[in-house]
């Protein structure tokens, strides 16, 4: 237990207040640059997946090689080369006309057997209509979260700091999606919304402790950090389990399989939480020390 306390002490000795504010801000700037670059090349801050542009994906349980499958489906607009996850092969297609789509569905079911075919398809027009809704949902979620935080603290600097920290978490997670080639799917989208509500938890803990508890503020921060790091580590553990089970467990247990929506949710939340550690214990802590504690005469 004391080891954690020592680590926390060492951490606060290592970084000055200035550093602990500037480093997260630099990360925010880098994240924004990545998102801007993506927007300039693709037109959207993150690459849009099938659910938001339309298209179809077919996962077939078959011993055939990706090459053979590419051959077999050459009549249809393959989006990229078939990918292989154990025995299951993933084929992604661009949107096509309804007749062609029906033909493709019938072909896959007939050729490989209904019991071996997992598929999903999203119409192009419908998918694109979801884009606007997705932006609306993210904006509304963020505003609602911000409103709750403002009502809670009723002080501008701490509240805005918490809201900014959540914002920084989300854009970092989105920037990492671009770096690691994740697209905006229903999974990653749900995770981004989850992050909006979830990323503020440790910030709420920290800010409440500092603002509402009496006594040595530095001690409060260190205590809050101990609690917060335990919280984040349990959540990270849960997410890591989800990530491993949904991504590579099929290598160890042959009956297991990839579950993309679960992996998507886990990965985005993991990035978001990593950013959250930095934004809570460097940025928010730094601001609290500089603007709330120091003027009050604390150390």
């Amino acid at each position, binding site marked *: *237990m004391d080891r954690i306390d020592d680590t926390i002490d060492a951490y606060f000795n290592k970084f000055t207040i200035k550093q602990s504010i500037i480093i997260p801000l630099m990360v925010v700037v880098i994240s924004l640059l990545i998102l801007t670059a993506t927007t300039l090349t693709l037109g959207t801050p993150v690459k849009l997946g099938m*659910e938001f542009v339309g298209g179809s994906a077919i996962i077939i*349980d078959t011993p055939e090689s990706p090459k053979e499958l590419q051959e077999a489906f050459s009549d249809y607009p393959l989006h990229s080369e078939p990918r292989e996850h154990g025995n299951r092969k993933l084929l992604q297609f661009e949107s096509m006309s309804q007749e062609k789509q029906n033909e493709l569905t*019938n072909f896959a*079911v007939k050729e490989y057997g*209904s*019991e*071996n*075919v997992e*598929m*999903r*398809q*999203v*119409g192009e027009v*419908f998918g694109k209509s*979801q884009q606007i*809704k997705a932006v*609306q*949902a993210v904006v*509304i*979620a*963020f505003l*609602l979260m911000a409103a*709750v935080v403002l009502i*809670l603290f009723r002080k501008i600097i701490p509240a805005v700091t918490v809201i900014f920290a959540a914002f920084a978490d989300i854009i970092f997670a989105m920037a990492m999606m671009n770096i690691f080639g994740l697209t905006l799917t*229903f*999974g990653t*989208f*749900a995770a981004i*919304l989850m*992050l*909006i*509500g*979830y990323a*503020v*938890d440790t910030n*709420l*803990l920290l800010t*409440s*402790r500092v603002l509402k508890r009496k006594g040595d503020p530095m001690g409060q921060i260190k*205590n809050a950090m101990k*609690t917060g790091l335990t*919280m984040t*580590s*349990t*959540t990270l*553990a*849960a*997410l890591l389990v*989800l990530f491993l*089970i949904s991504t590579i*467990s099929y290598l160890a247990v042959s*009956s*297991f*399989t990839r*579950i993309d*929506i*679960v992996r998507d*949710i886990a990965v985005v*939340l993991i990035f978001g939480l990593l950013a959250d550690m930095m934004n809570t214990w460097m940025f928010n802590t730094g601001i609290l020390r500089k603007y709330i504690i120091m003027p009050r005469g604390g150390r």
Partner: protein
Amino acid sequence: MAIENSLLKNPRVLLLIAGLIISLIFIYPHPTDDGIDTNLKYGLELEGGSWLQLRMQGAIIELDADPSQIIQSEYSTYLDDRDLKITRVKSDSIRFITTKDVTRPQIEELNYGTASLLKEETTTLVAISTTKERVIQTYLQNHLATEVKILRTEDGAAYEIRTNTSKTQVEQVLAPTGGNLLSYVEGVSSETRDDTKQILDAKLNGMGLKDIPIRTIGDDYILIDLAGVDIATALRIAATPGKFEIRIQTEGNETNKTAHVLYGDQITSVGIPQQYEGAWGVSFRLKDEGAVALRDAAIRYDATTEPQHHHLIMYLDNNEIFSGPLAAGLAQNIQNIPVKDLKAQTGIGEEGGQKAKELQVHLRAGALPVNVEVIGSGQVPATLGAQFKEQLGAAGIITLVAVALIVYRRYRHREIIMPMLITTFSEVVMILGFAAAIKWQLDLPSLVAIIAVIGTGIDHLIIITDEVLHKERGELPTERIFKARIKKAFAIIFAAAATTIAAMIPLGYMGFGALRGFAIVTIVGILIGIFIARPAYGAIIKHIIV
């Protein structure tokens, strides 16, 4: 034992226990031949099956046009009479004079209404009894080659065009009449949406697929989940109409001796149920060929002379749906000429009205009132779904173990860790209980949300634990201080819960397919956590340390 008793008397602990018992009753785990079964319902992704997401194509327009101008332009083209003149326009009829030699069926061919003719030496005075809305409706119908429904006549008439029609298309069609398009909205009315849903229901039931959930999202989308049906079959069901056939009794009133008259492809349009002289009925129109076929059959089997003994019987997918005689007047008419417009009478009163409604659906042969477009579809084979379930179950258990190890490393006291794990586990049981109670279908995102709730739930318990265990001058808190601290801890976790719920509300409200489940399970999980599970944990931990 006394200590245990006092804990069991704590209302917060009692509430948790009650919540657990009620949940277990709803989940109802019971042994079956192949393991343990529960009342939990799983979504398609976990049970196997296919789904279709359909968009109803159509447009709702408001417009204003001059009926006399429409009649003028329509009939002068149709009759090739440039001098055709409108003589009188009333709210229920329009009259015009033409120099051409015309007949009543000729005028009625355009479907603007019933006509009466007054022949004079060189001209004919034609009166069509119709209304302004009917004229506009018919005009749109004739020129857009689709069905058009009058939605309302007051406050600016509105019409529903029942196929994919762009604004420009409507404007082009209106241009020659000098009409004005006042508004154009893509989509269909809610009645049409309900009709479509009802027909799909009837079709699926007719195919022996009972209890297929058909959900409508807004006015434009329909979602169908077909458990245990593969996607190729699902597409076939939604896209193909049923087989409709009319047969005629060949020998005096014996139902089983019938001859084929015509198939559903001979029906060009079906009217809405209406009352004719007190009795309900549905009108429908045959193609020329169909009318001839009906006439031939009626004469051949004496239905024109003895209609009562030679019923016409209608079948949908070989099931009898209607049986009735030719009306006396109609029988006579048919003797003379092929009749294209027919009515099927279903009887009087509410029952007759209901039957007429059903018959209307059947006459359409399961064809939907509007065009539908498949905007999303998919399937998950049952074996794969079972794998998903198993895998996420494993993930849930491993997560609990991993979290237990971390909290143990931190607190090193079994007295704290056991209540933490029990509380978290109870939260999961209560979420599942809630799902079973409202018959919620658990899908992949819902299960992920449950695992996420384990993560956040533990977080909140850690906040409570650290807040109350916090030592001041090396002393653990007294009861009074304890109460104040619990209050502070709950202030933080209520705030944390509020932000997460706030962020999930748009997702739960807007839908996004399966993601609604994710949002709802997260919100419910958080509510159960903060109102039932965590207060109980507070009571337990107080019991342990004070």
